[in-house]
């Protein structure tokens, strides 16, 4: 008798819990792949395509599917590689390519013919201009992806080094032996981009 009560009550409980869980799954369903979102969240969003994919989101999808390796994002550098390694649960590995210094595009307005091709190429809408008018780059929006350079028919877009602002300057590590060893042991200089 006791056994029956136990089985019935536990079984009933399991049934209710199961119902609740399936309801919850319907209600709190996550749109899209959460892994892709997580990976995309740590990518620098430069949208430069240097990873071999047409933007950060496609690279995130490829990494999540296990197709692309974690070390291909050039602007992200060491820090992004480490974050991807953490997310994917794999060992960090050396970067496929050395990261480059941050750049910003600059249009020599005297040469610009106003063809609007660069506007179409810019992945973050950082170029303003109208047909047959000078175009210019909003430096604060430019990610330095270089995608606008190739399409320009008169070659009037230069990639300049991003100017170093005194407010954005950061202290380097102390120049002591132990600081150096500590950094080498980590096998990296995980710096911010």
């Amino acid at each position, binding site marked *: 008798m006791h056994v029956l009560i136990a089985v019935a009550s536990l079984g009933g409980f399991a049934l209710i819990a199961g119902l609740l869980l399936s309801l919850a799954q319907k209600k709190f369903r996550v749109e899209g792949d959460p892994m892709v979102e997580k990976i*995309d969240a740590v*990518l*620098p*969003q*430069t*949208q430069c395509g240097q990873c071999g994919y047409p*933007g*950060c989101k496609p690279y995130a999808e490829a990494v999540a599917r296990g197709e692309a390796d974690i070390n291909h994002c050039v602007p992200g550098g060491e*820090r992004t590689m480490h974050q991807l390694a953490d997310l994917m649960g794999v060992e960090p590995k050396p970067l496929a390519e050395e990261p480059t210094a941050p750049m910003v595009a600059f249009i020599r307005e005297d040469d610009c013919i106003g063809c609007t091709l660069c506007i179409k190429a810019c*992945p*973050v*809408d*950082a170029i303003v201009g109208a047909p047959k008018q000078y175009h210019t780059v909003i430096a604060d*929006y430019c*990610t330095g992806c270089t995608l606008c350079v190739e399409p320009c028919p008169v070659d009037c877009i230069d990639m300049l080094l991003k100017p*170093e*602002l*005194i407010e*954005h*300057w*950061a*202290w*380097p*590590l*102390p120049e*002591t*032996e*132990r*600081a150096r060893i*500590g*950094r080498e042991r*980590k096998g*990296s*200089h*995980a*710096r*911010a*981009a």
Partner: protein
Amino acid sequence: MPALLKRLGQVLGWMPAGFFGGIEVPDRKLTAHEPIRECPVPDVLILPMKQHIGEQCHPCVHIGDHVLKGQKIAATEGYMAAPVHAPVAGKVVKIEEHRIAHPSGLGLPCIFIEPDGSDGEHRYEPWADWETRDPAELRERVRECGIVGLGGAVFPTFIKLVRDQHHPINTLILNGIECEPYLTTDHRLMLEHADEIVRGLSILRYMVGARECVIAIEDNKQDAVEVMRQAVVRASLTGVRVIAMPTRYPQGSEKQLIESITGKQVPAGKLPVHIGVLCQNVATARAVYHAIEHGRALTERVVTVSGEAMPRPGNLRIPFGAPVRFVLAQCGLEDLDGVHVLHGGPMMGERLRSVDVPVVKATNGLLALHEEQIHGLNAEEQPCIHCGHCGEVCPIRLVPNLLADHCRNDAFERAEAYQLFDCIECGCCSYVCPSSIPLVHYFRYGKGQLAQIRRAETFAEESRRRSEARERRLAREREAKQARRRARKASTPAQAEDGEG
């Protein structure tokens, strides 16, 4: 027994409560007995567009313009800012980037003024009758005159001078602590200009409506304590106490001083006003007095030019923009071989990489030291022996050795969780560390990296938003195009049929 008596005195409020941690440092006040002397005007003054914490100013004069002493030459629309004024009458000869006293060695846009020797001066209307004026009006004047905290923090002063019903200010503390070794500017100002400082105190008190005022001075300046007491009596003020605090570094730091006097701690991430306290430096109070009662903008300050390698140390009144090289020459120092020049005190100041930088509002000291006087200059960092000294002296109660580990290993998020950003960079931990670990340097590194990471994250977020908006727009355009095409397709055959029929 004496310890017990001291504790009793603290509990009963006869004695200042003191603050946690801190260290005793040799005070080396070489210039305590040197009266303030005037620094001559150099051939050119270099005025950086940002001498305060906050937004950078933009020039409001042009090359070739003639300016008066005290005329505003740069300002910004931004809230957190302090305008810049011409320290002398003269001509604007250049506006370009010039190196400033900053560890990066980078520069800022600067206005170059060549003095013309005339004494043309611009003054605002003097308000001897400030007691009848609206505090908001006085506050605007303090802002307009470019006054910032002269203790070294250079925070725009007007921001703190608010009457807010939610956070009434009960206690106004005037900071005459000056706990950094060598520095004696506040000391000399109190001795020579006590009445002006007390006037400034009255104005500040009126502006914020504080009931109680405390003038805090360390007991290594007994003469200043005496002079200030007399000045308070002369001004027949009530509710103003002048107290001598036991000398201990970094008592002059705002939050430490508040803890010392009131026994209350300012919670992390909060401001003194949240516990009803306003703290101002004595030199700032004097600048406020000049701005209100004489209508004078902040264009000069007293700087301690000192150090064992300085031939004629002294306290100099220096117009902003004077090149450090020129100031050092006034004190007999021209050959800089084997001499390290510090901007600020030895604990929190910076070693200057170049002396071709101008004196600014933040310059409270210029020190010339030999190698042996700089603490731990060439010491090699050893492993931490976990002696715990650093934690004992940290006035913020941090755990410096762990923090430094996290910074060294680039575990910045971990360091942040250990309250890295609460560190006031006082240098106590580095000072006592037997392993010569440059702890503060690690913290600066960590803070800088974290700031860059945060900036990169914000930028990535914005870029993502813009790129997604673009994707959506392109998708919409594609769809519209297809819709048009479909519409055309749908109508074309119809037309064709029409044609046939």
